[in-house]
């Protein structure tokens, strides 16, 4: 491998798509981390990431082992109409790209400016990865990048070619 990176296709996360005003979401579910103020940033609390991805739009991420507990806490089917909580754990496939050349490999597929000065440690954003809609965030030593699950094999194919 000529880029000094490690690429891992991560197992499924517990993911929830949250929509609605932050105040209503916070009032409904007290398990949520504090809502980030700046757009395209995330907050973390007790192993749960809350990603602010757009106006009144959030992605909650946690280990898959916590999925049932989060469903119980979030009660998607009972949530009031002012908010929407949808389990989307299976919809995204995450790739973790770490190592000294992680940013270089990311730059092959992602048009986002991932420089430290533009994409800080708590940054998160939808962007593209090899032409696909992708959720991009930092992780220790690199980046997590998620694409629609059905494109997972294709992105793995791309990454294999990029680092061959």
């Amino acid at each position, binding site marked *: 491998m000529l880029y000094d990176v490690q690429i891992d296709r991560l197992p499924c996360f517990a993911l929830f798509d949250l929509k*609605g005003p932050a105040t209503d979401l916070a009032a409904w579910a007290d398990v949520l981390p504090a809502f980030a103020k700046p757009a395209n940033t995330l907050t973390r609390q007790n192993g749960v990431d809350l990603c602010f991805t757009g106006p009144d739009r959030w992605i909650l991420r946690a280990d898959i082992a916590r999925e049932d507990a989060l469903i119980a806490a979030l009660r998607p089917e009972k949530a009031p109409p002012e908010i929407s909580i949808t389990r989307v754990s299976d919809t995204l496939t995450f790739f973790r790209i770490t190592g000294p050349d992680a940013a270089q490999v990311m730059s092959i597929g992602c048009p986002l400016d991932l420089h430290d000065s533009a994409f800080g440690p708590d940054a998160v954003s939808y962007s593209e990865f090899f032409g696909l809609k992708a959720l991009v965030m930092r992780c220790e030593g690199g980046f997590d990048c998620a694409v629609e699950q059905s494109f997972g094999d294709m992105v793995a194919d*791309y990454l294999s070619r990029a680092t061959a």
Partner: protein
Amino acid sequence: MPSNRMDTGGRIDRDRPLNFTFNGRRLQGFAGDTLASALLANRVRLTARSFKYHRPRGIIGAGVEEPSTLVELLGDDASGNRPATTVPLRDGLIAKSVNCWPSPGFDLGAINQLIGRFIPAGFYYKTFKWPGWHLYEPTIRKAAGLAAAPAAPPEQGHFENRFAHCDLLIAGAGPAGLMAASTAGRAGLRVMIADEATEAGGSLLNRRLTIGGTPALGWVKAVVDELATLPNVTHLQNATVWAYREHNYLMVNERAPDNPSLLERNWRVRAGQVICATGAIERMLVFGNNDRPGVMLASAAQTYVNRYGVRPGQRAVVFTNNNSAYAVAADLTAAGITVAAIIDSRTDVPEEARTLVEDVDVLAGHVVTGARGARQVRGVTIAPVDGGASRQITCDLLAHSGGWNPAVHLWSQSRGNLRYDDTLTSFLPDQAAQDATSVGATNGQMTLADALGSGARAGADAAGITMPDIPTSADLIYAVTPLWRVEQGRDKAFLDIQNDVTVDDVHLALREGYDNVEHVKRYTTGGMGIDQGKTGNINIIGTVAMQQGAPLEELGTTTFRSPYTPVSFGAIGGLREDSVVLPYRHTPLTAWNIKNGAFMYESGARWRRPGYFPQPGESFQETVNRECRIVRNGVGVYDGSPLGTFEFKGRDVGRFLDHIYTNIMSTLKPGHGRYGLMLSDDGLIIDDGVALRLSEHRWIVSTSTGHADAMNSHFEELLQTQFPDWNVFVTTVTSQWNNATICGPLARDVMQALGTDIDISPAALPFMGFADGHVAGIPARLVRVSFTGELSFEVNVAPRHLPALWDKIMTAGAPFGIAPIGSEANHVLRVEKGFLSLGHEVDGTVDPYDLGLGWAMSKKKTDYLGKHAVAIRRSGTTNRRELVGILPEPDQMIPEGAPLTPGGERKPTEGLVTACVYSTVHDRWVGLALLENGHSRHGETVRARLKDKVIAARVTPPIHYDAAGERLRS
């Protein structure tokens, strides 16, 4: 072998000889050479033939401006039409000339020189019109002789595309660019500097100048070394900024990335600011036979002696209209070349120029009227500029300079304006269209001091800091008097060497009324192709101006287009080749499908799905027939994962669905589903699907697989533009709910064998009903919908559970003879049932009434999307194409899309066949068609008109199977 190589000097490594082959001759050069410098060192003067006339040609330039010697590289370097001046020499390089056969020395195409007067510019536009240009094009292309694309991709390595961002992109690492980079880099800006040459320095590599009292290349090295220490600076060499797009988006082609697995890399750079430091390109003088081998740009001759230690000739004549050629003459003399004379068209030569060459004879007020020699220049004819007696001077090198054209290509691509400068007699950057500026020679600052100063100023301005100190430098003042052409002499005088465009060609274009420079370009091809007007553009404009008596500023320039220099298709495509040339999507069952012998292909929205599961010895049709019989008579299962699925949430979902569907959805009770159609605002069907009401405010909406993304955009556009206050949230859950659909009369038996806590009796779970629970112990949503016309259970589970569910279905279904079925069988089954399919019956022209689905058009709702458009359209008298069934007579297949014409005659069509399949139920071919007034034509015979025959078909109702729908409701 005699050599033109100097014993010392140049930036080559004489300890590293490199062997190469040119036109079959084995030759040797050194590391640091280009193919061109190595050829000149080996005294190879005749290196090419011209594009059209096949005139003998040599090397004219020393860089990207080279218009003449294009070569084809073979072997590992395989590529076509590369200027020899830009090909770094390497051991084992194999190159051959283009535009000639069998060789530049003996070229059969040279016969064109004898008929040259019959093939002026534009002759092919007039000559090859009948029966059509494309009849002649292949032969003419072959005769032109440019190299073909390599037959196969490189065996090793790959191309890469990557994105980059910077505060400041600097195009060019000459003195101005380096100064700007150094200034902005020290100030902390994120700087990217890219330069087309293999090493930094720009013109300083070719000239003998000083900065700060020491050789300028020492300053270059110091700056480059400093840039390498700045983590905020990315410095690329052998990397051309080849395109300038909108919003400061630029393309950089890096030809030798430091990653050994890469062939080339293309950078897509989004820059905050851009500095164009692209230098200037010397223009040719226009005189008779100015294309002979040995006639060379003066700056190129200077480059060969100073940078490559090569004497391009032994006895030179320098022809100029400006000061810069005097420094060239001085350098040629210093290199041991005899400069027989400097021919200067100006009557007054500045003293500072003369003092550089005190021992050389300067003939002011003279011009070269023509070059002598065919395969190599052997002398020149000179005469006073205003006419008079001519005389000849013997030489083997004619170094000429018509002045300098700022390289405004990138600036022009950015849509920045150009202005004509009388002093420089060329076009300069004027008003910027984007956040860009130009510096150095690009901006008309032609001396080294001005270049350094302008670079520093631009770098400081970009960083918002004060101007740094500028090192001292000495350079000859640039002064030029335009000489657009030498009017004496009868030989061909070329304006565009690469495209073989002469002064006479431009005159012809003007005579024929093509008097705009853009029209002249198209008529003559001057400035087109690889050259993009680098050496000839301004001379063409000058020639037009002379002929029309108009000032150049009124004529303007032609458009400079990207790429500035040729770029490999591979570099543009990057990784996107082979298996990833097109996007593809897999379901969790893809591996199972492949393992079990499925024939896979894309079937909409990039999903790769199993088309059919052939068994040993089966033909395609036998396989599809078997799979159909399994579903009609027993039980089959298919992977329905790609179905578009959305969760809707909110207080206003009901009325939103009432708006987008033709029928009423808001009256649905929780736990029930309803099929519906969606129309565009012009009343045509855009999709169909099922809406399930989970609870008061939660719904699941399914769309067709192929239109899922488009429908998502449709929903969001409506909500964000027309109903921003409505309380509706839409979440895509296509990949959260995958399904295995069990279908066939034995489907309920298989469900019971699987085990479920859901009551699946017809009463508890009727057609269009759904329920949440467990199937085979897996959390599932069971939906009673059918796309095959049979009893069906759509078992929806999370994708992570689908492989396990599938295995359990295959196990539980084995006693019932269950088998997987593919898209082909599904297609047959839905055609038998008369179900519509987007892309077939829904072809962008039909409304629900046309398809016999008028029942789905609500009469109760006052409005919904497309309602009025349908009403308006149907209030007219135009015949509608309506869905019918067809039975081919005699029994045979009719291709999909076959036109139906009255009587099968060559007349306007009255419809088309949308599908035709072999029905195992009826043991014959059945089909669907859209036919004018089809609903009232059941029983008629229509005819499909094919290329070689006409096939009759009887018109029937569109439902060929279970018209009452008893089976799917069972």
